[in-house]
């Protein structure tokens, strides 16, 4: 039982490490900055619309 749990721990650490590495790769592609900028612009515009509606 203990051996199985230890094995699970190792697999879990390996999985988490893989997830972290893939996250770094995914979020560090050069286009991500532009992608996030576009989304910020979308949400900025959305916030303006909400503010206008509240004012009305």
């Amino acid at each position, binding site marked *: 039982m203990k051996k199985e749990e230890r094995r*699970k*721990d190792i*697999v*879990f650490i*390996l*999985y*988490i490490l*893989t*997830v972290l590495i*893939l*996250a770094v*790769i*995914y*979020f560090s*592609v*050069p*286009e991500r900055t*532009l*992608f*996030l900028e*576009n*989304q910020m612009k*979308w*949400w900025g*515009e*959305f916030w*303006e*619309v909400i503010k*206008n*509606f509240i004012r009305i």
Partner: protein
Amino acid sequence: MSSMDISSLNLAMYISVNLFLFSSWYICLYRKKNYLSFADRLIGAFILGLSQIIITEMLLGVLFKKLFAVPLFLVNISISLVVLALAITLCRHETCPGKNKNSSLYYLEDIFCEIKDETIRIFSIIRKDLVLFSIFSLFFISICWLIFLSYLFPSYTWDSLWYHLPSIGYILQSGAIQDTPLYSFIDMVINVLPKNIDLFFLWNTIFLKSDIIVDLSQLVFTIIGILTIYSLALKLKIQEKYAIYSSLLFFFTPVIIQQSTTNYVDIAVSVIFLIAINFMMYDFPEDYAGSFKAIEMKDKKILILLSGLSSGILLGSKASGPLFVVVLSGAILIRELIKHFNSAKITSSKHKEYFLKDRFLHYLIYFFVPVLFMGGYWYIKNWVLYNNPIYNTDITLFNITIFKGVFKGIIDPAPEVINNLSSLKRLLYVWLERVEYYLYDSRLSGFGPIWFILFLPGILFYYIYVLKREKHGFLFASGILIILFLIYPSNWNTRYVIYIVGLGALSFGLLLDYFHKREKALKIVALILALYTFLTANSPAIMPGKIREFILLSPGERTVARLAPFNIDIHARQEYGYWIWISNNISEGDTLAFTFEPLFLSPLWNRGFSNKIVYIRSDAYKEWSKELKMNNVTHVLIRTNSVEDGWIKNEKRLLSSLWWTGALREKFKVIYADENYKIMRFGQ
């Protein structure tokens, strides 16, 4: 009757027919609750209901050429009443053989109680886990947001306007499912398209006499897809909490979120494929380790039937349908062979006989017949009319052309940036999503970070774990999904292979179940990525400014031309004028003739698809004019300075010189004109 009354009547018709149709099948399936889980009965009722919709529309449209709202309503209500009566009668016989009339009421009460209890139970599981509750809340907000966007905006996407909506427009205007004369490339595409899902789009238009919710059609498939992943996860013996995690995370795939409000068919195709696999998952080879279970399988015809119906709908939904069916059939064949050899070792000769004869017969009757029945028509029709079942592409086997098509190979080549990359590099490039925004048919993105960061390693890790253990269920489902993914011609294009995300979601659920005590970190990563997707899956085609503008417009004014989605704007800008004019002025009973190949056919109909459109072109004015009369044309759309424009101008010049023929001058009265187009009222 006022237009308000008519709209209310149409809405009542739509709600009642849907309520009767799906609830009658659910009540019918309730009898099978020993074989079918709650989720499977819901999915099964959806598949049976969808099959009924397709069959009744085909019956009225192909055979009787009377596919109109009233006949369709009456036929479906009648069928549903028969199904309901049969289900209740059979239940009364099974549960209370005496003549106790109250037993039907108890039966219905049981059904309502079960739905209530199951909903409360599932919500209590969600409520107990804060991370799961947060993911569910994001999901719920997204669904409400998508419904709001669908209501606010018309169907604006490229393929919807190009061929999905025109294909239902042609059916609605003629009441017949038939090929239209081939005048342009798009007519050919519309004619040869397998239309099962388009018939579902039609279902969501015909009663309401409006396209207002037609773009919500795929959202239904998204929700059923989530339910299917949940059901598959339970069959893989994942704890219920993790099954809910899997199913909700499946939703946080940008291409699914973006396509849910479009009249594309990609979500529908992938979800129906997952449903077909789901109904095959009852029947594992390890069940045949004991002879009793083998006999029990005889009673599970309903499962094979549901799988067959799903595969049939899939076959008739997209030209790539045969590929899905070949893989599913291959999986059945391999599994049956394994079962046969497993059982041969342990069972008596009587059982062997059952395996060899009856099982083959069962699959023939309950799987392959429904497959051909639900999807075969479109291919047989193409074969008869165009000598090729798929028509637009060559069908080759080992470099031998069996059926000649219009195109050789894949119509949709890979974008230049990935064209020279190897298959694996192409996939990695697309999965890394090196794009500036998400779009419903983006060819270089769509799976989102959950796929790349959590699901992809999840599949790999779980496979390593599974290889040492005999997990037949997972190997069977994942085998089908992976094989289809590998042989699919454009598997780099995310919208064609949405089903593979289902495998990722299941693998992640299995891993959560496996790690169990260490779940916390993974759950938090999942929540962060779901939140990221929730915040970034916005389409640049629908900017907040447009949302505000459309809220202030009246429903009739909310048109594609006013939305001007950025990806069609460059191509369609010069068309907006006459699109708006048509949506404001062309009404029921009008026939609009056009003389050129427009960018999109869809805007030539009004939003209720209540007018008719017809392509009329001729080499001579007299003949053209005669054809306009023969087709009872009320309006003519022409290009400015086209041949037709010249004819009309000449005639006007001639008539104006002959003052006594003044009455004839109104034959072509210009009622709309811009730089490029003219619309004229045609007086007969």
